[in-house]
């Protein structure tokens, strides 16, 4: 296999963690919506916690993206 093709495949494989991140962010927001539906008064507090969870999960996606970018444009 030539080197360029191997690099492209590697970059593609490097964003595989997005599968888990997608599931994680989906679960965070589905639970957030459920909690707000059950107790609308807690919306403000829950939202800030939800955003914190979102940022921490999203960071994992960006690590993966970073590796892919580093492989693609070295």
């Amino acid at each position, binding site marked *: 296999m030539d080197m360029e093709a191997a690099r492209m495949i590697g970059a593609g494989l490097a964003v595989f963690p997005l599968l888990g991140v997608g599931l994680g962010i989906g679960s965070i927001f589905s639970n957030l919506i459920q909690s707000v539906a059950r107790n609308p008064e807690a919306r403000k507090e829950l939202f800030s916690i939800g*955003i*914190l969870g979102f*940022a*921490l999960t*999203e*960071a994992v996606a*960006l*690590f993966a*993206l*970073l590796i892919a*970018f*580093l492989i693609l*444009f070295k």
Partner: protein
Amino acid sequence: MHSPLEQFTVKTLIPFHIGDVDLSFTNSSLFMMISALGIFFFLGLGLRKPSVVPGRFQSLVEMAYELVSTMIQDNVGHDGKRYFPFIFSIFLFVLFGNLLGMIPYAFTFTSQIILTLGLASLVFIVVTCIGFIKHGFKFFKFFLPEGAPLFMAPILIPIEIISYLSRPISLSIRLFANMMAGHTMLKVFALFTMLLGIYGISTILLNTVLIGFEVLVAFLQAYVFSVLSCLYLSDAIHMH
């Protein structure tokens, strides 16, 4: 065509060497100075003539103050009030760094791992010192959670120590990777627009949305950085 990673190169503006140590004034230091001056003028102008009914600038400063103040109140509690200046400076410095990077042709100094690692190690060292000053040698109890059975200690203690030592690494890599990946992504999408030529007009809307998203991320990452510093501080003060 330039590589999307080219925007992160540190360029020397004024060369300055002491022996083998390179202390040159770079574009990174220039933007750090701009951000420090920006914070100075932001707070100074906002509070020049404080009035009961705040003007535009003053309400911005008050919003930033309230945000960090409630963050410390919620996460650390009453004992955390003393450390407000520390958390507030970190929050403003990271926020200004992230937002300055959103200006076209500006350099994002928070996308340099050395800077974020320095900030995170500062937080780590300060928090550890506070823990030892507050609790003395009892601080080592931190590594064995209360109520854990004693025979679990050989497993739990190494895990706790590793998780404690990896804090500055995860804290710094989160900020660095977010800023770097975000800015690279913007460049890559801008490249798509350029490759489309005249049809690139259709993707400009997408690019605008992405820039808005990046501004949100810039704010969010500064917030997350200071919230996590608060949580570590709370751990050191209250011991779990």
